[in-house]
């Protein structure tokens, strides 16, 4: 198994406060890696640093063996990464169609391909068709989350960074959301880094788990091993 996206000895923070300390993590080709950890452990900060939204203090971000530390999100998007951010990943003043259109334009999807891309995403997440003409501000939390994921898929990424897609979703809804993502992942060999609080549900679709605490990796293994590890399961 080869790593597609890595953080190597990454250290970063906000102002004086360190959040990640000498952290290394690797996402392997074609796997779903679930990253869990307490609130404030630094999961989102890691995601943002991997996607060029937050500067690395020291250490590097490596994409398919090449250093991309400091690259812009657009440059990374063009190299096949997409991110679904924590919280509402939609613009309330735009319609769903406009969000999709703008999302494709932003990462340079040629005009001639856009309709096909949108139809492809509507194939993966068919419910979106029901509210594509609505202003995104009027969508429910789950609908907004689908749109946010759909938007990320529009660039046909090879690597997907999902930051707490379950936030605000009932477990059943979360499964509805994850099932097509997992299917797509298996079909196309996507690599997914999934940050989740909703550990039990997330483990069901994950190939590997890393546990993070106060900016450091403290445990790594297979989902089954984590479920068997009583001490860790009690914590998360």
């Amino acid at each position: 198994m080869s790593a597609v996206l890595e953080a190597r000895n990454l250290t970063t923070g906000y102002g004086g406060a360190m959040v990640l300390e000498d952290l290394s993590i690797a996402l392997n080709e074609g796997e779903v890696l679930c990253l869990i950890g307490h609130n404030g452990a630094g999961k989102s900060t890691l995601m943002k640093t991997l996607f060029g939204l937050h500067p690395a203090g020291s250490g590097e971000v490596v994409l398919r063996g090449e250093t991309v530390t400091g690259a812009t999100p657009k440059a990374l998007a063009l190299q096949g990464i997409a991110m679904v951010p924590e919280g509402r990943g939609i613009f309330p003043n735009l319609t769903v169609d406009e969000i999709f259109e703008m999302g494709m334009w932003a990462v340079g999807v040629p005009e001639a391909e856009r309709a096909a891309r949108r139809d492809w995403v509507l194939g993966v997440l068919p419910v979106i068709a029901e509210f594509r003409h609505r202003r995104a501000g009027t969508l429910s939390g789950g609908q907004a989350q689908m749109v946010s994921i759909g938007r990320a898929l529009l660039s046909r990424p090879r690597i997907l960074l999902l930051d707490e897609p379950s936030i605000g979703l009932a477990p059943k809804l979360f499964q509805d959301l994850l099932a097509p993502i997992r299917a797509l992942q298996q079909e196309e060999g996507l690599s997914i880094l999934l940050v989740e609080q909703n550990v039990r549900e997330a483990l069901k679709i994950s190939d590997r788990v890393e546990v993070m605490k106060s900016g450091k990796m403290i445990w790594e293994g297979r989902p089954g091993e984590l479920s068997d590890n009583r001490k860790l399961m009690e914590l998360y």
Partner: protein
Amino acid sequence: MLWLQLTLTGLQTGALYALTAVGFSLIFGATRVFHFAHGAAFVLAAYVFYWADTAGLGMIPGIVLAALAAMAFGVAMDRLVYAPIQRHEGSFFTVFVASFGIGIVVENVVGMVFGRSFVTIDSTLSQSRELMEGVYVAPLAWIAIACAAVFFAALQLFLRRTHTGMALRALADSPELIRVFGLDPRRLSSIAFALGSALVVPGAVMTALGSGLNPALGHHVMLISLAATIVGGIGSIGGALVAGFVLGLAENLALIAFPSQWSEAVTFAILFLVIILRPAGLFGRATAH
């Protein structure tokens, strides 16, 4: 026929107020920057046009130069003043003071170069003709109203139909999410400033041709832009347009009852009435925060 006369001049004044206010509202709506130096962009554009006229360059080159000056000023303010303040997470008050200070500097520099007294450009466009008995209208009035309609429609099309327009509508909600999409919020912010500042040009040019200029004009322009933005509903450029017309009409119709030095009081009266009766403004959406 006095009221008809005042309504027509009110529409003319209102058209110019409206576009200038739409410019301010566009900038505020997209960037959440309280661009108090918007009045200074107006003064700059007006005096560049005036200078081009005295230099004999002709009307069209004068308008182009005025537009370039206003846009360059807006973008420079964004890049050199507001961006550093935002980078250091400066407060609303810091932005206000910096912006206000730059406005004063522009006023004084313009005063030093062109003098502080009233100047105006003679033009047949500002010569009134009798429309009907006792009602006089200059061609400038029709041009002003047409400009407001055309430029506003063009702006709406741009915001609705182009990708950059969509991004500008999205920017204020979350510059961070704009970056997640792969766009550059700083670049979009500069576009908002360039466009918003360009919208002062019709007002600036027609004020130079019509009622005349002095370097302190920026304060009145700013008061009107701000009042129109609040009366129209913050974030609604359509609201700013309508409110610009309302303020222009009110200022002129008030002449039936009050002497002309009361015109700013009328603006404030409308502002306070709206704040008390309809705090979200005429077209404001009630927002959660």
